[in-house]
C-alpha cells in the first residue's frame, strides 16, 4: 500500500470543543475513500485541516499525490516532511483540491471561465486573458478524464450535476491529485449520483485519489474502496467496503444497533384536511416554480412529495403555509378556503410547519429556547394574555419540549445558535407537534440530522398519523418519503409527475419521475392519483 494522504494523530480543538480527537487517516493512492459519520462527528473539520482551512492543534499532515515514500534516514516516517498548510492556497499547491457542498461558481460565466478563473492563461504580456487557449485547455482536460461538459455553456444553464463536474474540473485544472468532496450527492438525482460515481472510477484509474464525506451508508459502500467512520471526533475504524455490512457500518456510526426499517401500522384514512387545487406559484425572481399542482391530504395519512431540491417543492409548501402568495389556484384547509389567510391564522387554526431551513426560519438563532418555543404563539393564550407575554408559562413550555423531545442544550439559557443541528431540529419538531395540529407540514424534517434523531422524528410523525392527523412530508431522501408515506407524489420542474404507491414503486421508477419522465407502460407501480387530484395521464407534457 502506498498512501497519498496520511493524517497522523490530528487533534483540532476549538474553544470549548474538541472537533477531532487524535484521528489517524490513511488514504491509499488511487483509491476512493469515504469519510462516514453522523452530523457533528468532525468529518468536515478533519477535511478542512487537510485542505488548509484549519491548522491542527496537534498532529501532522503528510500529503503526496504520487504516494508517500518511506524514508529510512529521515527524522520523519516518510521521505517527505509533514506539510504545514497556512491556507487553502498552500493545499492546492500540494495537490489537494476540495469541492464544497455549496458550489463556488459564478453563475453567468461560462464553464471555461469558471474552471480557469484565477489561473487564466494570459496573453499580451499578461494584460489579457487568452480565452482561446483556456478553452483548449479545458477541452483537453475534459477529454483526458472523459467528462462530457460543454465548455461554452453558462453555469446558470447547466444542471447541478454538471456544475459539480465543473467544480471537479476546476480542482483538476489547478493540478489537484487528491480531491476532497463534501457531501457530493446531497444535491443530485439518483441518476446523477451514478454518473458521479462513474467519474470517480475514471479519476482513480488515472491515479487520482478521492476522499468524499458522507453520512449515507449505502453510497459509501457502493462507491468507496475504503471507509473510515468518525464518531464524536474520533476515528472508530477504517474498513474495506467489500468486507463490511450496512448493519456493521451503522453500528460503527452510532455506537449501537439501528433499526433502519420503519414500522408503519395500518391507519384508517379519514376526511380530507388539506386540498391543494390547481395551485401555481413563482419564485423570488418571478419565474413560475409551481405549475398547476393539485392534491389532497387526509386524516391519518402521510402524503409524501419526493423530488430533487429546487423543483418547486419549497414554493409549493410556502404557498400552503402562507409564506408565499399563489399566483393561481386555491388552498383549502379543513373546511375553509385559506388561500388568502395570513400566516398567523393558519398557525392558530392548527397547521404546524417544520420549515426546510431551520437557521433562517425555524429558529431565531439569537434567542434562547424559551423565546424560540414561543415563535408562532407569541399572540396566543395561554402564552400571551392581552398583549402581555407570560414568560413563566413560556419557560415551562420550552422545558416540556426539551424533556419530551430529548433536546440536549449545551447549557441552560443557551442561544439556539449554540445547539447542534439535530437538537435544533428536535426542538422545532417538538414545538410544532405541541401545537396539537390537525395538519403537519414537514419539509426535510431530518435533513442534517443524525440517525438516532431521524428515527425519533420518524416515529413521532407516524404517531401523529396514528392519531388521525394529516401529514404532508417533503424530503429529498428517497428512503424517507418512500418509507413513511401512504401516497407519494413526485415533483419535477414545478409539476407533480405522478402520485404512486410507495410500496409498489421501485427506486428506479421514482428516479425516472424525478428526472421528469413518465412511468413505463409495464410498470408494476400503482398510480394513486385521486379523482380530486390532477389527472397526470391526460395532461402530462412529456406525452
Amino acid at each position: 500500500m502506498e498512501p497519498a494522504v496520511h493524517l497522523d494523530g490530528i487533534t483540532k480543538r476549538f474553544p470549548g470543543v474538541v472537533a477531532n480527537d487524535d484521528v489517524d487517516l490513511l488514504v491509499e493512492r488511487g483509491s476512493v475513500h469515504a469519510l462516514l459519520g453522523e452530523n457533528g462527528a468532525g468529518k468536515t473539520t478533519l477535511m478542512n485541516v487537510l485542505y488548509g482551512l484549519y491548522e491542527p492543534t496537534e498532529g501532522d499532515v503528510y500529503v503526496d499525490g504520487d504516494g508517500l515514500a518511506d524514508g529510512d534516514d529521515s527524522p520523519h516516517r516518510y521521505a517527505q516532511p509533514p506539510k504545514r498548510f497556512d491556507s487553502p492556497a498552500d493545499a492546492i499547491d500540494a495537490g489537494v483540491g476540495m469541492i464544497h457542498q455549496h458550489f463556488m461558481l459564478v453563475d453567468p460565466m461560462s464553464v471555461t471561465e469558471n474552471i480557469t478563473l484565477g489561473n487564466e492563461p494570459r496573453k499580451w504580456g499578461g494584460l489579457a486573458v487568452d480565452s482561446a487557449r483556456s478553452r483548449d485547455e479545458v477541452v483537453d482536460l475534459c477529454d483526458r478524464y472523459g467528462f462530457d461538459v460543454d465548455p461554452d455553456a453558462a453555469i446558470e444553464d447547466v444542471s447541478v450535476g454538471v456544475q459539480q463536474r465543473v467544480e471537479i474540473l476546476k480542482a483538476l485544472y489547478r493540478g489537484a491529485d487528491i480531491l476532497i468532496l463534501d457531501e457530493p450527492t446531497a444535491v443530485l438525482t439518483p441518476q446523477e449520483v451514478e454518473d458521479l460515481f462513474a467519474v470517480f472510477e475514471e479519476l482513480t484509474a488515472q491515479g487520482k485519489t478521492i476522499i468524499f464525506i458522507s453520512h449515507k451508508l449505502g453510497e459509501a459502500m457502493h462507491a468507496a474502496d475504503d471507509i473510515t467512520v468518525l464518531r464524536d471526533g474520533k476515528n472508530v475504524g477504517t474498513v474495506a467496503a467489500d468486507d463490511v455490512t450496512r448493519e456493521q457500518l451503522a453500528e460503527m456510526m452510532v455506537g449501537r444497533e439501528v433499526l433502519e426499517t420503519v414500522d408503519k401500522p395500518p391507519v384508517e384514512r379519514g376526511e380530507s384536511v388539506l386540498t391543494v387545487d390547481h395551485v401555481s406559484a413563482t419564485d423570488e425572481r418571478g419565474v413560475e416554480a409551481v405549475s398547476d399542482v393539485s392534491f389532497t391530504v387526509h386524516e391519518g395519512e402521510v402524503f409524501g412529495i419526493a423530488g430533487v431540491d429546487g423543483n418547486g417543492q419549497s414554493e409549493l409548501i410556502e404557498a400552503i403555509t402562507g409564506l408565499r402568495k399563489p399566483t393561481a389556484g386555491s388552498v383549502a384547509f379543513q373546511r375553509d378556503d385559506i388561500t388568502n389567510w395570513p400566516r398567523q391564522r393558519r398557525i392558530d387554526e392548527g397547521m404546524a410547519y417544520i420549515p426546510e431551513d431551520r437557521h433562517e426560519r425555524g429558529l431565531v438563532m439569537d434567542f434562547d429556547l424559551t423565546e424560540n418555543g414561543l415563535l408562532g404563539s407569541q399572540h396566543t393564550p395561554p402564552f400571551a394574555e392581552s398583549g402581555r407575554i407570560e414568560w413563566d408559562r413560556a419557560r415551562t413550555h420550552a422545558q416540556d419540549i426539551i424533556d419530551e423531545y430529548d433536546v440536549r442544550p449545551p447549557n441552560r439559557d443557551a442561544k439556539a445558535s449554540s445547539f447542534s443541528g439535530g437538537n435544533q431540529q428536535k426542538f422545532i419538531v417538538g414545538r410544532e407537534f405541541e401545537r396539537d395540529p390537525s395538519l403537519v407540514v414537514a419539509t426535510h424534517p431530518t435533513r442534517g440530522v443524525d440517525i438516532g434523531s431521524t428515527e425519533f422524528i420518524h416515529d413521532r410523525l407516524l404517531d401523529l398519523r396514528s392519531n388521525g392527523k394529516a401529514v404532508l412530508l417533503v424530503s429529498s431522501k428517497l428512503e424517507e418519503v418512500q418509507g413513511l408515506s401512504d401516497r407519494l407524489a413526485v415533483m419535477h420542474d414545478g409539476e407533480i409527475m405522478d402520485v404512486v404507491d410507495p410500496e409498489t414503486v421501485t427506486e428506479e421508477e421514482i428516479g425516472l419521475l424525478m428526472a421528469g419522465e413518465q412511468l413505463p407502460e409495464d410498470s408494476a407501480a400503482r398510480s394513486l392519483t385521486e379523482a380530486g387530484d390532477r389527472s397526470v395521464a391526460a395532461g402530462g407534457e412529456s406525452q
Partner: protein
Amino acid sequence: MSAGDWRDRGRSALERLVRASAFERVLISTAALVLSMFVGVLIILAAGRMTTCTTAATTFFGVGFCYDPFAIYDSLFLGALGDPINPLFKPLQGEFAAPFRRGWTPLNSQMAVTLRETTILIFTGLGVAIAFRAGIFNIGMQGQLVVGALATALTVLWTSSLVSGLVGTLVLIPFGLAVGALAGGLFGAIPGALKAYADANEVITTIMLNFVATSVALFLVANPFKDPESPANETVGLPDFATIPSVLYEPRDNFSIIALGIALALVGASYYLLEHTSFGYDIRTSGIQPEAAEYGGVDAARTIVSSMTLSGAIGGVGGAMYVLMILGNYQTGVPSYGFDGITVSILAGNNPLGVGFAALLFGVLKSGSIIVDVSTDVPPQLVGVLRGLIILFVAMPEFFRMIGAKFVIESDEGQAVATDGGVVEDNGGGSDE
C-alpha cells in the same frame, strides 16, 4: 503565528465579545472610556506643544505645555456637574483634605444644562433604539423631532387662549406632549409605510424627510406663523402656564425634573414593551431574523409601520419637550438631538435601559464642553476631538458586538466552530445522538 491561528483568535475574541454578560459590557465600556482619555491626554499634550503661549499651563519633566490635560478633563466631566469636587491633580495647592467644594449642590445651573440635554437625548435615543430593534435604521429622528416640536408649539399656542392658570398647565402640557407624539408618529409612519408597502429603503427616505421637515418648518415659521415682533424666525412665545414648570431648579435653567421623570418612565416602558409584550416579541424577532418572524406569523409590513410610528412618536415627544421645557416657542435651528440620538442608541447597544446612561454621557460631554470653552484656552475644535474620541471608544465595542453577532451566528451554522465539531467538553450535550 500563522494566518489560521490569527483567524481562530480573532474569531474567538469576537465570540467572547458577542457573548459578554451585561456586567462585562459595563466593564468594557468603562475601560474604553479610560483608554479614550489616555489617548486624549496625548493629543492634548501634542497640541499644547505645537501651540505658542506666554505661560505654560502645565509642566511635565521640565517641558512646558500650553494646555493642561487634567484641567481639561476635570472641566469636561466635573464641570458638567457644577464642579462638585476640587480639581484632582493640583498637589501643590494641597487641597486634598476637602474634596467636596463647600456649598455644592446637585441643583446648580450647570447640572441643569447637563440633565436638560440628557432628557431630550433620552427621547431621541429611545426612538432610534426601538426602530433599530425592529431592524429599521431610523435616521429621520431629527425630522420627527422637528415636526413634533413645531406641531406642539403651534397647537399649544392656539389652545392656550382657551384655558389659563394651573388648569391650563395641567391640560396643555399633556395635550402638547400628545400632539408632539401624534405629529412625530405620523411623520415616522411615512417612511415606515414606504418601506413596508413600496420596498423603499428607510435610510434614503428618512434622510430625505429630514430635509422636508426642516425646510417646511422654516417656511412656516418664517412666513405664516412668524412672530411679527421678532427679527428671528420664531413663533410667538407660549404663555408661562403653558410651559413645563421647573421643580427644584431655577426657571431660567430651562430644565424640569418632571420632564426627566417622564423620560425615565419611558425608558422603563420601552424596556417592558420590548421584553414583555407580544408586540415587543414581534419587533425583536423582525429585527434579528425577519424570515423567522414571517414564519412565526409576524405581519412584517404592520410591524415595520407600527414600530416606525412608535419611534417617531417618541421623537415627537422629545420635540414637544424641547418646546415646552427649553424654548417656550418654536425657533428654527433645532440642535442635532435627532442625529445624536442615533449615536446614543448605538452606544446603548439599542437597549432602552442603556439609553439612559448613554444619554447622560452625552449630556455631560455637551454641557462640559461649554465649561471647557469658558474656563480654558483650549479651542473648541480640540474639545470636539476629545468628545469624539470618547464616543468612538465607548461605542466601538458595542458596534463590534452588533456586527459580530451576525458573524458568530453565521459561523455557527456553516462550517462551524461549536456545532460542526463533536463534543462540548464540559458535558456531552453538544454531540448528536
